[in-house]
């Protein structure tokens, strides 16, 4: 158990002229929940598909759960689970039949106890005979996860698992993930929602096929250059327009009832903001500095030219 769950050295993969994965190095520890985030086309899904043995890499060394991807692919495939973006369920099969199908694919003969356990645990038991197509987004997601877990994998990959799932189901889903983590399963997931990534042990920001930053969310937030200030004032929209033109303000983000500003230097920048708004007759009701979100950091790294924008 001294080896990491995933060990990637100098991985490359191109599709024609496009370097989808470009000299990527990454280690993911056993028993951690790891989020892979980045813009569209960053290489997240390609990386996951390589790790799952679905597509072959062009170069580099990859080991998963201690097995070499080239020489011991089957050992890896037997020990991992993959939940793709579209959940890959059969709409015209029942919940029970979907599980049976996945059990057969994975050559799990004695799956019935495991199945009942998973259904109970995910509160799917009352709906077993329902067709997958008739399930809500949240139930489909749980069924897809149950299918992914039928062969007791040690490591699971979840590609955008919560897209289109409502908040209550999403909360249930995160609770299930925490439970899985407790049982020792390693979880690697991708998400376009950075508040979700923030709940993981570590986050990797990926762009142009390589990793820009890999660290705990709290450390990534410390990388933020500048101070985030939350401003509550009358006429948010007018203030937003004015502040966008102020030089000392690196970025303005307008929310429904407040504005977040990123100031390179608070001490010199904030008095400037105050005086400009005052001169335009906008009253600041309150202001405070707030902890940057992962989204703030992500956008800021990007603006420094470290990430290409689309």
């Amino acid at each position, binding site marked *: 158990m001294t080896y990491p769950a995933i060990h990637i050295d100098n991985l490359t993969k191109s599709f024609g002229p496009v370097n989808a994965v470009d000299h990527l190095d990454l280690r993911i520890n056993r028993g951690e929940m790891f989020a892979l985030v980045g813009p*569209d086309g960053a290489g997240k899904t390609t990386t996951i598909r390589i790790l799952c043995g679905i597509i072959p890499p062009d170069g580099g060394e990859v080991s998963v759960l201690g097995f070499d991807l080239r020489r011991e692919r089957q050992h890896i495939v037997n020990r991992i689970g993959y939940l793709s973006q579209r959940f890959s369920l059969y709409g015209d099969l029942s919940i029970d039949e979907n599980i049976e199908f996945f059990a057969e694919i994975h050559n799990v003969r004695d799956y019935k106890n495991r199945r009942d356990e998973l259904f109970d645990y995910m509160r799917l038991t009352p709906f077993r005979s329902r067709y997958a197509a008739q399930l809500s987004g949240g139930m489909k997601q749980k069924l897809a996860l149950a299918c992914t877990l039928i062969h007791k994998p040690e490591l699971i990959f979840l590609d*955008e698992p919560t*897209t*289109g799932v*409502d908040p*209550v189901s999403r*909360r249930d889903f*995160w609770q299930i993930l925490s439970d899985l983590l407790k049982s020792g399963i390693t979880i690697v997931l991708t998400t376009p929602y950075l508040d979700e990534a923030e709940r993981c042990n570590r986050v990797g920001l990926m762009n142009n096929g390589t990793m820009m930053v890999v660290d705990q969310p709290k450390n990534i937030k410390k990388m933020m250059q500048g101070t985030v200030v939350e401003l509550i004032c009358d006429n948010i*929209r007018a203030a937003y327009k004015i502040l966008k033109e102020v030089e000392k303000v690196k970025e303005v983000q307008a929310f429904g*009832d407040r504005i977040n500003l990123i100031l390179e230097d608070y001490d010199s920048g904030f008095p400037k903001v105050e005086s400009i708004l005052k001169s335009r007759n906008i009253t600041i009701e309150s202001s405070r500095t707030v902890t940057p979100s992962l989204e703030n950091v992500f956008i800021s790294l990007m603006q420094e030219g470290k990430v290409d924008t689309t």
Partner: protein
Amino acid sequence: MNAITVKNLTRKFGDFTAVDNVSFDVKRGEIFGFLGANGAGKTTVIKMLCGLLTSTSGNATVAGYDINTQPESIKRTIGYMSQKFSLYEDLTVSENLNFFGGVYGLNERDLNDRIAWAVEMAGLTDKKGALTGSLPVGWKQRLALGCALLHRPQVVFLDEPTGGVDPVSRRRFWDLIFTLAEEGVTVFVTTHYLDEAEYCNTIMLIHAGKIVAGGSPRQLKTEHIRYPMLEVNCTGIIESLNILQQQDWVIESSVFGTLLHVSVENEEAGSRKIKEVLSEHNITVHGIERIVPSLEDVFIHLTDKP
């Protein structure tokens, strides 16, 4: 002036009441967030407001038109963009815009003006000839928005517009929405992502067919969660959650990724008791911090009742 008024709106399907006596107003130029879990009645409300479904009782107007008697006028006055974008993947960007412009009955001159506007707004100038299917999700999203706005609607409905869109494109999308609202377009949006609901001026929360809360994001956070909320970082999240849920001094607790959110009556006493009870069970507490509840906490608080 209100862009949308909804009064005692009710819709039944057989014995089932999907929308139950719902009332609210949406001001002109407002970004209005309509939130609810699957099956809460969101889609039924939107269908009625778009003139696609009549009400069983109660009434609503959109841009001054009655949903039950003037649905055709409503359809001409509103724009609608769905989660799936409804674009033709095998048509180019220009062809999609042309097609939707035709559907909305724009004359040729107007159509050319509006297509030029939409392409510019969506940042697709270099991509006019590109096949829609080949575009990244964020670009498709902006194209779909452009299509929905070609006929200069006064009210635009965005039904889960950002599913699967990356953070950079999403930020850009909300900047566009903000500009639209400032020009006086009323934006009615649904989303499952509560960090996004923060962009809305007003949020209405529907649960089991009824409105359970409404207000600005700040109002929702301060009016509905009255007790201090603590974020607990400790080992054994699930075990800790089970222990805390058995304590009568814990008001609410839930998992938040690798952390716990716990509501208590008093910050200091609560924080001390959490440390005590968890360490009795040999759980190490790495840190406890008071946090401002997120909209997600509010949503769970209001809707997750058995």
